[in-house]
């Protein structure tokens, strides 16, 4: 059987590969031909080859059941998502603009709160944000950069317009999948890869390290940078060690660090060694048991004191969660206008705040048609998709919204764009999103593309890996869509 697209239905969705009339979009033509040449057996063989390389490298997450964990790989789809050069250029400008505004916002919020004083954002919204850290008010961070690494989730609606679904300004994960997906594709489709001129992604770790070195305390030109991980049982541990390896720096766990005289040191075979910049993959709450959660065994007692004293820098900064609060999200377009005097290049998804009376009324009357999200959850948790929800679930969220209006927002259901995916012997459309990784250092850089996440279950709109999502490689083209042939 041929792995062709004859049976493919793009349905009533924006399809990345096919236009409405069933015509393949030009930048996908070479790919279509390549897949039509292959039998399903060949495609299966390539899929097994790719999966085996993930398993051998230990790119797995652990699913616990019974007395021992089984290691699973994140599902990987062989059909890449392709983004033409001009489309990417627009996305890139939009993301740089957005992260610049968010960093200016964070500086403002922890200093004069001009944006509140001038009536753009109500004070109440900031004060009640779960991740606002009063401890940081007045603290100057190097170069005013709070979010050094941002993972912004983009989706495309029915007309193909790119929209921002959320900003992840705390510890966005997934970049290792992006890099490994590329390695896997190069291995299994070397020729196809050559015929498209795909922009490379492999300099990400070097750019990340440059961004981290840039923000060393006291302008130290040769800082010691480390990755701080919760440990090997964390589901993202592979990524933490992957990045440390690719940057050539140490990976540490809380107990490897000690604070003395407001300085952070790591415990080495030759004594204590001072640490200057910490790329921490531990949430604020667990970072310092003397300041935040007392029960945290992952953190480093006293590290916030050293941070406040300016002797160590953290990436991302403490307190960035106030910027990826889903209520704050509502105000990002206004922030862009306020701080930069520009119109947003990438629009938000239409959002209703249950904290605002008119919006709340609308939300409560239309729960079965809306997506409701808890303001401070991530990873697809604390979310209800109205049309897919049971009566019971809807009532649960209704009660929750009435009890805590600040805690929820609602959005219309966006029928995310779909991309052809190879599922059990045939090619079918699946919903996808895109998470580019934006680095703010000396300049703001984005490696071309991002992680394309796929809702592998038929009809599902949830792409998070914790909810059964998979991923595919994302190709940003250098020119116009591969050499003609």
């Amino acid at each position, binding site marked *: 059987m041929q792995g062709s697209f004859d049976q493919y239905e793009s349905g009533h969705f924006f399809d990345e590969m096919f236009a409405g009339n069933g015509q393949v979009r030009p930048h996908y033509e070479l790919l279509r031909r390549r897949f039509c040449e292959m039998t399903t057996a060949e495609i299966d063989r390539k899929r097994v080859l790719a999966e085996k390389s993930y*398993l*051998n*490298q*230990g790119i797995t997450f652990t699913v616990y059941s019974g007395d021992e964990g089984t290691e699973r790989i994140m599902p990987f789809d062989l059909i890449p998502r392709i983004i033409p050069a001009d489309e990417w250029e627009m996305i890139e400008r939009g993301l740089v603009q957005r992260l610049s505004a968010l960093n200016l916002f964070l500086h403002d919020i922890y200093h004069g709160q001009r944006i509140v004083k001038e009536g753009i954002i109500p004070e109440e919204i900031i004060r009640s944000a779960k991740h606002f850290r009063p401890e940081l008010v007045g603290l100057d961070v190097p170069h005013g950069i709070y979010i050094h690494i941002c993972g912004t989730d983009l989706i495309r609606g029915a007309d193909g317009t790119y929209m921002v679904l959320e900003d992840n300004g705390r510890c966005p994960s997934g970049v290792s999948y992006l890099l490994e997906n590329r390695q896997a594709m190069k291995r299994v489709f070397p020729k196809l890869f050559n015929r498209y001129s795909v922009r490379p992604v492999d300099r990400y770790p070097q750019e990340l390290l440059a961004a981290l070195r840039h923000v060393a305390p006291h302008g130290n030109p040769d800082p010691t940078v480390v990755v701080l991980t919760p*440990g*090997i049982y964390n589901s993202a*541990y592979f990524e933490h*060690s*992957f990045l*440390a*390896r690719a940057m050539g*720096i*140490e*990976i*540490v*766990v809380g*107990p*490897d660090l000690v604070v003395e005289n407001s300085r952070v040191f*790591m*415990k*080495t*075979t*030759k004594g204590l060694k001072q640490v200057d910049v910490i790329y921490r993959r531990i949430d604020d709450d667990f970072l310092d048991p003397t300041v935040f959660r007392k029960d945290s065994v992952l953190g480093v007692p006293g590290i916030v004191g050293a941070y406040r004293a300016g002797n160590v820098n953290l990436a991302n900064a403490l307190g960035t969660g106030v910027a990826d609060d889903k209520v704050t999200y509502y105000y990002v377009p206004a922030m862009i206008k306020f701080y930069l005097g520009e119109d947003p290049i990438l629009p938000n998804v239409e959002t209703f705040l249950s904290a605002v009376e008119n919006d709340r009324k609308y939300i409560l009357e239309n729960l079965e048609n809306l997506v409701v999200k808890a303001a401070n959850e991530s990873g697809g948790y604390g979310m209800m998709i109205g049309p897919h929800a049971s009566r019971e679930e809807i009532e649960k969220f209704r009660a929750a919204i009435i009890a805590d209006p600040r805690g929820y927002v609602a959005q219309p259901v966006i029928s995310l764009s779909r991309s052809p995916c190879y599922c059990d012997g045939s090619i079918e459309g699946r919903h996808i999103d895109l998470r580019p990784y934006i680095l703010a250092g000396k300049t703001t850089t984005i490696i071309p593309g991002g992680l394309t996440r796929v809702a592998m279950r038929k009809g599902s709109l949830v792409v998070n890996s914790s909810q059964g999502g998979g991923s595919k490689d994302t190709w940003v083209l250098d020119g116009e869509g591969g050499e003609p042939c």
Partner: protein
Amino acid sequence: MLSRVADACFWLSRYIERAEANARILDVNIQLLLDFEDQHGGTAANHWQPILATLEDQELFNETHPDLSGDNVMSFVTFEKKNPHSILSCVSIARENARTVREQISSEMWEQINRLYLYLHSPSARATFAESPIDFYRSLVDSLHSFQGITDATMTHGEGWEFLQAGKFLERADSTSRVLDIKYHILLPSGERVGGNVDSTQWMAVLRSCSAMEAFLKISHGRVSGWQVAEFLILHDSFPRSLRFCVDHLDLALHNISGSERTHFSNEAERLCGVLRSNLDYTTIEAVFRTGLHQYLDQTQLRLTEISGALVKTFCTWMHED
């Protein structure tokens, strides 16, 4: 280097070496059994009890197994998860340590150890084992050798590598002394005399389990006696599994880590290792047998344990603070 990383490298390496030693010991014992079963009709217990004694696993085995059969012992030493010294446990612990230092070791090393781990947990490992235990142990030893080769060829020979060497040679010295000691536990069948056929076949098995047969025969002119085998495995200066060679290389790794001259010591691990090294450099096989071979090996194992403790205390003292 982080103390935690040094500690993980040291133990990762020890467990890899221990897995290899177990595989070798089992392989050789199966062969011995094939040689002698028919002629002498010794009970299985006679053949397998020494294995448990030398691995110091006897108590746990007796608790969990009513009878001492070859199959029980082999599966206990190979696949038993509850046995912390089983090959499966050793490889799992080594992999767990490797996981915590993945950015220190090369990707190739990790992949090799991870592949082995996945294999041992797969049905195909059990199938190969059931079909031919000898092939199974051979291929296991091959995989572990590959790990050593990959380590040498792909990892920077810096501090982390030296901790791997220290762990490897310390464990290897320990396992060579245990393999030699097996012979002490094996009773000769009645009517057999020391130096007779059975005796020398058993000594040859000891040599084989250290991959020392060919090297030994090159210098022994075809004669195999306990005296000579012990001398070779304890005192030979360049065979890579002899006690003397292993302790010498352990000493070298320790000095490379600290940066001090080999003629002196700068920490307790180096001092203890230096004492053991000079003993091996200047003792004779006559003196060893005067002490008693078993007693000598026992003492050596104790000293190796002390060196290991001192090493961890010297370099990884942070680990054990709180």
